[in-house]
């Protein structure tokens, strides 16, 4: 449980850093002070990990698990053993140093709180990667490090190089992350669990699995991209555009080690095979040489360090590939040694950059006098990098050489590995020498570079790891540390490892090789001018950056081609989709065609069925041939009503009822929308319905026939395979009355069994209403504004912005209008050839028609009737046909009638309770309150509660004041709100007011 503490601490740190961004704090506290305060948190994490060490000193592990999806064997767990503790100590320890250093690096720039926040966030992610006890948790944090690394690299986001570098690193590590996830999921599925304990136990199972090479390839790809193995190393040098503290922390000491950590962690499960050996050793070797070679070529100090980091990462991967106890001994020592000297060097390079204003080797030189302490720190660290005694780096190199000469490797292998290691060691030594000599010694190359010593504490930060590399090397046989390292190596190796930290082991083959490497390195360093000049002249034969650029270019090209296929005509898309879906279904769907034609008996019911089917189809078909859109809409309505009759005969009375009212409402809405269009446009619309080439018509007809045929076959299959076994329906049938008190099973499903669906559904309905309203209301308004500002420009009148928001009817009366506005006014009164513009608009219905007194009286009577009808629907819907939807739509129909008869303004005036937004809101709130109350009482969302019985009310027979009833009322309110919004918006787009 306590294991989560360090994670929380650093997250709190990130939050505090963000809080420090607040002006009131930012003004009072300098960034340096803030950094010192924040450093307490990673320091606390460091101390915490130290305090846990005794608990795992026996080589065991601390595990903390939270069940998440136990059925899939997935949980979120944390895991601390010696291997992760080693990395965790490095991350939190160096993290503390880097946070303090950041305070000095950004001195005077208090806006760098952002950097501190990102840094601590990254630290939390990194701790998460190392603390994760299962591969899913690991992956989540793994991606977190990629993202936070992106933020840190792109910190100076105004700089294009920073943005490009950040994108490149995200592109490559993110791509690797996807592969990693796939690989880890394979591992989890084969091992039967995603936690390390299970996975580490299932090594034999995993290695024997036919998927072994697939999962190994995917995981290795993920780890290689993260740990910058060639050819994916190209992102690391570009990531150096990050501020130096980030480079020191992420891109040398911590994040890039994540891949190494993962491979070491999974070695007992996936290692010990030929594939593992060749894959890791091969890539590691190439990376080691590539990094070492390219590093020597650099002029930029950070780039030089970046390439030497690449080289070192190659060494680590190679060691894991070797898979011997000596190799893992070398691995843990190398990880520590490298983290110490590389972070120290990065931080001193940061100081040089900060104080001298450049980190270009061609301009530096002779800084020893100006920066004596920085120079000393850098020299100590560089000695360790060069692998010279008595530094810890020397020990790392010795153990490395011993590992590559391990007797289990074939002689040819030893020769190759040893030669490559010696060469890489020599190159690295030459780089360390170049870095120190060309920066601090010799003559100043550029007279414009003036450096001065950095603040004491800023130098102290790199001094700590630098001195530790010395101290670790000098300690005579530190027993405790050796045991800790041995345990860490054993966790990665899967078996006991013996670690000795003595520098002097006698004259051994590794020592001889080491001497060879040092001499070669010194020779290279002495002739570095010529070597580097030669390197510059050699063409870059294979540049993987070109590959990266090509990949991105290909992506762009693909996107261009994809957009080319988009003609912008919806009809074309639709046709393409329909044709392909139909073809796919008919060709590959393997739809079992019914072999026998079902028997046909002609009784009364089937005559009725045939009649309605023919009616529905014929009316639908008629809508094609009717010239006027209005008539086509009526045909559509007839077809919809026939469909309702088919549903009655199903028999499905509830559905049929809803179908009837919805069909009528749809027709009303369509007619309203149609009548809002100008007459000329409508006339043109009729003409162009069939305005098409003959071939086009035939093509559309063929598509329609094909789609229809496909649906026919599907339906026939569905119908002829009845009855089918069903589990769900019998459950609903058996429990409807007992659990929900409803005899109507459909109603019980809608408001009870699947109440949550219905809640979402009415939310969608309400939102659609709001959507329609917003679209038409604001779109119309914008047209107004555009046209008015146009007329303003033409000097025809001055209309201020403020007046535009005045009521629409006032605007209608204004004589100055743009053509669009005029078209809006003109079309309505002339819509039916009736009406007069001088009429009082408020008593006019749609189209400006004044309805006859009889129709108006009818409307007044109709509304209360529908309200009663709706109430009955809701009260008795649980035992009979009918429900909240029907109720809501019925009232909406009456409202629609009112709009048509009285017009928008008058309806709003006479029905003050009709506030669509409030209705939708009230409906949704009511459902949620209803559900929450029953959850509180019965312990389940939408559980059935009979309030009538609970309160002892005497209610009419057959009516219960229950959860379901309240739900029905809520549905009714929401549907009414949504529908009346649609009606108002479509019927009177130019009149609609924003509800206050």
């Amino acid at each position, binding site marked *: 449980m306590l294991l989560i503490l360090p994670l929380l601490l650093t997250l709190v740190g990130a939050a505090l850093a963000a809080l420090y961004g607040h002006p009131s704090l930012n003004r009072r506290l300098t960034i340096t002070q803030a950094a010192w305060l924040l450093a307490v948190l990673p320091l606390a994490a460091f101390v915490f990990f130290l305090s846990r060490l005794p608990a795992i000193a026996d080589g065991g592990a601390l595990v903390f698990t939270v069940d998440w999806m136990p059925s899939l064997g997935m949980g979120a767990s944390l895991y601390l053993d010696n291997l992760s503790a080693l990395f965790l100590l490095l991350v939190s320890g160096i993290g503390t140093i880097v946070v303090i250093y950041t305070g000095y690096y950004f001195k005077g720039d208090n806006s760098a709180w952002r950097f501190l926040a990102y840094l601590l966030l990254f630290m939390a992610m990194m701790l998460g990667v190392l603390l994760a006890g299962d591969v899913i948790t690991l992956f989540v944090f793994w991606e977190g490090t990629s993202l936070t690394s992106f933020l840190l690299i792109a910190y100076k986001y105004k700089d294009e190089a920073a943005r490009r570098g950040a994108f490149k690193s995200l592109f490559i590590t993110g791509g690797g992350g996807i592969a990693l996830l796939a690989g880890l999921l394979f591992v989890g599925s084969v091992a039967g669990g995603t936690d390390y304990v299970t996975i580490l136990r299932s090594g034999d199972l995993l290695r024997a699995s036919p998927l072994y090479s697939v999962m190994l390839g995917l995981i290795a790809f993920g780890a290689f991209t993260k740990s910058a193995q060639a050819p994916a190393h190209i992102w690391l040098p570009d990531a150096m555009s990050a501020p130096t503290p980030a480079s020191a922390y992420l891109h040398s000491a911590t994040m890039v080690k994540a891949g190494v950590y993962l491979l070491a962690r999974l070695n007992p499960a996936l290692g010990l095979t030929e594939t593992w050996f060749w894959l890791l050793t091969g890539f590691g070797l190439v990376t080691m040489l590539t990094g070492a070679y390219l590093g020597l070529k650099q002029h930029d100090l950070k780039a030089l360090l970046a390439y030497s980091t690449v080289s070192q990462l190659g060494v680590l991967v190679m060691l894991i590939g070797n898979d011997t106890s000596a190799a893992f001994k070398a691995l843990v020592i190398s990880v520590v040694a490298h983290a110490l000297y590389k972070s120290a060097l990065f931080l001193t390079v940061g100081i040089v950059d900060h104080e001298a204003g450049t980190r270009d080797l061609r301009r530096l030189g002779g800084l020893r006098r100006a920066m004596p302490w920085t120079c000393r720190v850098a020299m100590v660290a560089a000695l360790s990098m060069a692998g010279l005694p008595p530094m810890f780096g020397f020990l790392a190199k010795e153990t490395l050489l011993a590992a590559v000469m391990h007797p289990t490797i074939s002689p040819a292998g030893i020769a190759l590995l040893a030669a490559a290691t010696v060469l890489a060691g020599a190159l690295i030594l030459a780089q360390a020498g170049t870095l120190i000599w060309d920066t601090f010694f010799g003559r100043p190359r550029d007279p414009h570079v003036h450096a001065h010593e950095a603040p004491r504490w800023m130098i102290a930060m790199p001094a700590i790891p630098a001195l530790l590399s010395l101290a670790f090397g000098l300690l005579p046989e530190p027993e405790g540390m050796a045991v800790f390292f041995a345990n860490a190596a054993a966790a990665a190796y899967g078996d006991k490892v013996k670690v000795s930290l003595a520098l002097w082991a006698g004259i051994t083959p590794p020592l001889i090789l080491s001497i060879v490497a040092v001499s070669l390195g010194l020779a290279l360093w002495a002739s570095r001018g010529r070597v580097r000049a030669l390197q510059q002249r050699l063409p870059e034969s294979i540049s993987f950056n070109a590959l990266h650029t090509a990949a991105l270019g290909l992506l762009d090209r693909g996107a261009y081609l994809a957009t080319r296929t988009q003609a912008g005509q919806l009809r074309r898309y639709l046709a393409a989709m329909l044709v392909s879906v139909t073809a796919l279904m008919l060709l590959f769907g393997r739809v079992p065609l019914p072999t026998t034609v079902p028997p046909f008996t002609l009784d009364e019911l089937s005559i009725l069925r045939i009649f309605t089917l023919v009616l529905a189809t014929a009316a639908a078909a008629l809508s094609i041939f009717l010239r006027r859109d209005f008539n086509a809409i009526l045909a559509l309505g007839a077809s919809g009503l026939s469909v309702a009759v088919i549903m009655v005969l199903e028999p499905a009375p509830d559905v049929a009822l809803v179908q009837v009212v919805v069909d009528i409402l749809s027709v009303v809405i369509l007619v309203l929308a149609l009548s809002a269009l100008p007459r000329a446009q409508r006339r043109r619309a009729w003409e162009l319905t069939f305005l098409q080439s003959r071939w086009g018509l035939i093509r559309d007809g063929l598509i329609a026939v094909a789609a229809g045929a496909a649906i026919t076959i599907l339906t026939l299959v569905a119908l002829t395979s009845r009855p089918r076994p069903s589990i769900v329906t019998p459950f609903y049938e058996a429990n409807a009355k007992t659990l929900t008190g409803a005899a109507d099973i459909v109603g019980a499903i*809608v408001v009870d069994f699947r109440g949550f669906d219905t809640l979402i559904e009415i939310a969608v309905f309400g939102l659609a209403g709001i959507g329609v309203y917003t679209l038409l209301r604001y779109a119309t308004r914008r047209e107004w504004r555009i046209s008015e500002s146009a007329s303003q420009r033409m000097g025809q009148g001055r209309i201020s912005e403020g007046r535009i928001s005045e009521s629409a009817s006032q605007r209608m009366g204004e004589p100055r209008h743009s053509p669009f506005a005029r078209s809006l006014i003109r079309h309505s009164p002339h819509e039916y050839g009736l009406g007069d513009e001088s009429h009082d608009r408020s008593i006019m219905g749609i189209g400006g028609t004044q309805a006859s007194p009889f129709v108006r009286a009818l409307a007044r009577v109709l509304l209360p009737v529908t309200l009663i009808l709706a109430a009955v629907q809701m009260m008795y819907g649980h035992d009979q046909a009918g429900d909240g939807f029907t109720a809501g739509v019925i009232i909406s129909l009456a409202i629609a009638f009112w709009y048509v008869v009285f017009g928008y303004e008058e309806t709003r005036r006479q029905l003050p309770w009709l506030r669509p937004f409030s209705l939708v809101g009230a409906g949704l709130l009511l459902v949620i309150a209803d559900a929450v109350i029953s959850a509180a009482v019965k312990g389940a969302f939408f559980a059935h509660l009979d309030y009538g019985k609970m309160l002892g009310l005497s209610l009419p027979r057959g009516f219960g004041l229950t959860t379901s009833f309240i739900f029905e009322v809520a549905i009714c309110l929401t549907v009414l709100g949504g529908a009346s919004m649609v009606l108002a918006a479509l019927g009177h787009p130019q009149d609609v007011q924003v509800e206050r």
Partner: protein
Amino acid sequence: MDLLKALAIGAMFGVGVFQMLRRNVIRSTIGLIIISNAVNLFLLATGAYQGVAAAYVNEAGQRSDALPQALVLTAIVISMAGFSLVLALLYMLSTRYHTSDSDEIAELKN
């Protein structure tokens, strides 16, 4: 009977598709509704039983399958919501471009 029903549903779907492919956007909207009617009927047909009685607990005889009915009930309401949104979009387009011709609107875009 089943064959006839399947044919009718297929025919309605085909009519809907044909209507949707018209240039006149009002016809496209009509097509959308016809298609959704046909699909709702198809969904009803996916019920596990051919019933002779409505899906009420107290009805005797083989009840029709309540599950697809509940789904279709929801679908009808949702499709009306969707259809009004489509209509609002079409209306906006046609008032902005002063045409109900989808091809012409597409040309205006480019």
